[in-house]
């Protein structure tokens, strides 16, 4: 938490609250525009024992490591929620603290339904992949959810899953092609066999995970990617998810500090969604 005097806080607030007249933008302490992110660096695939991995370092010193692992599971009797495991470890916070659990549940909710819809984890009628995402936040200075969602995005983009042996995938294609005929004998055979994977060939998972944008509301202004100082004087904060070229649920508000908490108006919401719609395609392009 930053230690600012009352005067310093007021100064910061006034400069961030300033109205958008004469084309003047609110003045952010680090000189960014309202729709500008802080620079960050991403390195991919540095863990050979994981299917995909990312190390994200932001310019303020936030460092996040994400690893994805897939395993083959028997899908019969499993719920839709059993195919994704997200583990979040933030240094300096207990695993069972509200802070960590809230973030974990937002990530899980935004990811799980889309992952199930896309069907990219399915192997055949009986077997499926299970995706385990481990997030390790080595250090953080502002609310890290947005950066975590970006790290997860690049991890899943670089995740490779084992390919079925050719004979196996043909057999599956045959079975699904003949699903109209529905011969019970074939289906039984299929159920009894474990899928056989190719030893060396992998294929990309092909799933674009939703991105979560953090929009801080100060006065009438909406600013993206608030830094630690900005978070400490923000009225409120909106989490806006972006998936498949449009803004989607969940959209959620969180408070970033204890001293300035105000509600927000529909105009704020509209403005934030517009802002995300404007910047998100560029962010997605940059992450690809």
């Amino acid at each position: 938490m930053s230690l600012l005097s009352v005067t310093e806080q007021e100064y910061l607030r006034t400069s961030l609250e300033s109205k958008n007249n004469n084309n003047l933008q609110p003045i952010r302490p680090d000189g960014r525009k309202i729709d500008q992110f802080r620079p960050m660096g991403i390195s991919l695939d540095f863990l050979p024992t994981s299917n995909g991995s990312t190390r994200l370092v932001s310019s303020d010193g936030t460092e996040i490591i994400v690893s994805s692992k897939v395993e083959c599971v028997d899908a019969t009797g499993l719920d839709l929620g059993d195919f994704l495991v997200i583990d979040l470890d933030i240094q300096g916070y207990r695993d069972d603290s509200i802070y960590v659990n809230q973030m974990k549940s937002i990530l899980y909710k935004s990811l799980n339904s889309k992952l199930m819809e896309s069907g990219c984890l399915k192997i055949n009628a009986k077997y499926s992949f299970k995706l385990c995402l481990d997030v390790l936040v080595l250090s953080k200075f502002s609310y890290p959810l947005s950066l975590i969602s970006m790290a997860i995005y690049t991890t899943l983009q670089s995740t490779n899953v084992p390919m079925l042996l050719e004979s196996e995938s043909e057999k599956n294609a045959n079975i699904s092609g003949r699903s109209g005929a529905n011969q019970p004998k074939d289906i039984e055979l299929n159920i009894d066999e474990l899928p056989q994977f190719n030893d060396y060939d992998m294929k990309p998972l092909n799933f674009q995970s939703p991105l979560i944008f953090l929009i801080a509301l100060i006065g009438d202004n909406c600013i993206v990617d608030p830094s630690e100082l900005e978070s400490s004087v923000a009225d409120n904060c909106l989490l806006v998810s972006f998936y498949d070229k449009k803004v989607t649920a969940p959209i959620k508000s969180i408070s970033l500090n204890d001293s300035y908490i105000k509600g927000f108006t529909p105009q704020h919401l509209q403005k934030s969604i517009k802002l995300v719609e404007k910047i998100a395609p560029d962010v997605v392009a940059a992450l690809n």
Partner: protein
Amino acid sequence: MSRLEIYSPEGLRLDGRRWNELRRFECTTSTKNSSNNSDGSSYLEMGQNKVIAVVNGPMEPLNKAQVNQEKALLKISINLTKFSKMRRSNSSNKNEKRILEMQTALERTFSETVQLNLYPRTMIEVKLHVLQQDGGMMGCLINSVTLALIDAGIAMYDYISGVSVGLMDQQPLLDLNSLEETSLSSITLGVLGKTEKLSMLLIEDKIPLDRVESVLSIGIAGCHQIRDLMDAHLRRAGAEKLEKLSHQ
């Protein structure tokens, strides 16, 4: 017996090394880009082991009861990530007995070598994150703590370098990988600088007494090699840092 040929009659091991060769050793220090993060850090790759070490301190202890008027308090914690092995472990590795034992062993080793008496009433905290493990983890942890402590500028008498040595029949093998570690009995040792003083010796398996000497001597030679590698890196990094400062 294992079906694998750990050491071939031609003198080659599973990964093509000879008996006295180390694995790939690569390290970086000051991995964090901003100074408000930590006082020192290191990233070490030793074979397939990947370890991040972060040093904070000397700083005010979080708990007043921990204050020692004479010297600093050294705290080392190990975070063995769930994804560090080939198969993901479902249980959290924190507070596992094996991990706690390793932490105390490291704390004891380093509190002898770090000049803690220079920093009274403070705490020095070292956090280790194991991203991937591949045999000889303890040696790798010792090396990464040494690098991070030196990067943080904390006074030490000398380097401590660690390596594991296994015994295959009569033949000692230096720096075991995970396949070798599971099938051979091994020891881990920590050596102080270029001396032959052992600051740590960890024997968890049975080793015939008449073979211990040859095992220790190859281990000490290996530790000296690692010390030279770390020294070369730190001197290079120091020179780069100095050059950057002189340009400012």
